[in-house]
């Protein structure tokens, strides 16, 4: 009888995993396609691309990767005057935005989640409940008001202010870090207090090193998100074009600068390099740290 059940179990498992595996394979390949297409097309000539939309390049044009550095330009208006950004200017903006905004966003969440998870104080329960409230009962779709408030506080079109004020610390990351901080045994900090250390010593010398893998994963994910995001410049920083925004604009304007789609895609391929390198280097840390628990303390 037991043998029969075991056989049935194995048969059923095999069937299920084969079906799921096939769906996975087809879907996974389709997700790879944009990436492969971008790389292949970026090496094509104009006629080559017009002849074959999906095929391999007949001659590999490496020049697309050099010419994009010369032709990729975006015009923006600042203080009533036109400014032209080249690829290096946009790269610089992307780098500053991704490095620092990721840092300040994470800092805000870390500071709040750590206090709520590890300290007993009057506001503790309230702050945790606020996080649940914000996640469960959001005020939806207030983009117009956000723009008005950003203008009031001088954040709109101000690169520095936009980086320093990343927004409310509550949400998914708060929940994730709250759980991670909570899991660190209190004996670690007690040992530091016995040795005469203070709260800051505990936080900087004990908690941060222990949390480094999770924090790195969140930082890298935020970095990649900001690096590839064109909407920050579109909505809040119209005079500060990032590379993703520049490429987004350039694909409409490419004809004006005599560029072809393969050259634009060479630009996108260059833009993707930091994200891909970062992700491949920290792939294990990133995928393992993505955990979300329930909405309860």
């Amino acid at each position, binding site marked *: 009888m037991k043998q029969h059940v075991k056989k049935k179990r194995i048969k059923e498992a095999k069937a299920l*995993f084969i079906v799921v595996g096939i769906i996975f394979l087809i879907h*996974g390949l389709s997700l790879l396609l944009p990436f492969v297409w*971008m790389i292949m097309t970026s090496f094509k000539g104009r006629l080559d691309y017009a002849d074959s*939309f999906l095929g391999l390049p007949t001659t590999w044009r490496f020049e697309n990767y050099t010419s994009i550095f010369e032709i990729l330009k975006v015009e923006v208006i600042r203080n009533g005057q036109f400014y032209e950004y080249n690829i290096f200017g946009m790269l610089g903006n992307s780098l500053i935005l991704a490095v620092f905004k990721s840092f300040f966003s994470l800092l805000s969440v870390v*500071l709040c989640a750590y*206090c709520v998870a590890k300290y007993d104080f009057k506001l503790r329960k309230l702050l945790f409940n606020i996080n649940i409230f914000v996640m469960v009962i959001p005020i*939806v779709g207030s983009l117009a008001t956000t723009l008005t408030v950003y203008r009031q506080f001088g954040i709109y079109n101000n690169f520095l202010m936009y980086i320093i004020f990343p927004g409310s610390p509550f949400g998914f990351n708060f929940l994730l870090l709250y759980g991670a901080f909570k899991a660190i045994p209190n004996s670690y900090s007690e040992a530091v207090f016995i040795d005469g250390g203070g709260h800051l010593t505990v936080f900087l010398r004990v908690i941060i090193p222990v949390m480094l893998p999770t924090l790195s994963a969140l930082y890298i994910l935020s970095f990649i998100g900001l690096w*590839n995001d064109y909407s920050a410049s579109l909505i809040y920083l119209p005079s500060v074009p990032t590379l993703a925004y520049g*490429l987004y604009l350039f694909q409409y304007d490419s004809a004006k600068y005599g560029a072809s789609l393969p050259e634009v895609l060479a630009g996108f391929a260059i833009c993707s390099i930091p994200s891909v390198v970062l992700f491949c280097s920290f792939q294990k840390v990133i995928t393992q740290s993505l*955990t979300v628990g329930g909405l309860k303390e």
Partner: protein
Amino acid sequence: MEKTAERKKLKPSKKQVTKTIFLTCMLIYPLAQFLIFYVYLNFNNIIMAFQGMRPDGSTYWNAFENFKFVFHGVDSTLINISFWNNLKMFALTLVIGMPLNLLFGYYLYKKKFGSSIIRVVYMLPNMVSGVVITLLFMKFMEIGFPQMMQELFGIQIPNLIRNNNSAFGVQVFYTLWLGFSTSIIIYSNAMFSIDEGVIEAGKIDGTTTLQELFRIVVPLIFPTISTYMITGVASIFTVAGSLYLFYGLNDVPQKTYMMGFYLFKIAMAGDLTAYPVGAAVSILITIVTVPLTLGVRWLLNRVDPMRDVYGDIA
């Protein structure tokens, strides 16, 4: 003597003072942002919903005119379409996406063929700009797919992206296609935290694979599933799809409109006089979202298989 003791009791110790100073320093930055970007912003949003705005940005009291405009103004049809499209999009992604997410997550959890590669491949769309993915998808739908259908079956396919009747279906397909990435990783990570002993005990009792998935794994990762569901419902009307990347600001087919895009368009069009209408719409959809989210939360609490073990969701 008694008074000195009482005073001593009232006076906070040095330890307490340092703790308070530390907490204040730690919390001042995040809480200041919460006060500005959540409390002040939403307070402003409520006020703006009852105001009118002149082209120079100055405001005046407008009572319920913005709300009247939402229901009876020139955009009422568009708002109505957007509202139902968001609900349809949520229902379809939930019905099709959630079971597949769980199955895919379970596949990774069981470390079946190609799991480690799949974990990388599924994160790849996040590494490339959304502009590239949309560009390829559009080119494929506009050039590749019709060409393929013509060559293989001799069928002439109209442009599905530009066609008012098929454009929303394309959006649903696109959202589903790109929808499985981080969620699969999160579900599989939640599954990895399950005690192996529980799974082994199930095997000894003769559970089949599907029984293991639905009777052991799903109940044990239910907190993660319910968090996903609750936040999904809470953001039901913020979804804008990739309409802007597909069509730009002004060429979106009417039947494809979604609430997120409608509000985005108001903010981006540069017409300050339309901002209060956006605020009114946001208040109205919040009024719909709040009971819906709380209802789902209540329902999930009722059906939580581990409720008797761990108690209610907070």
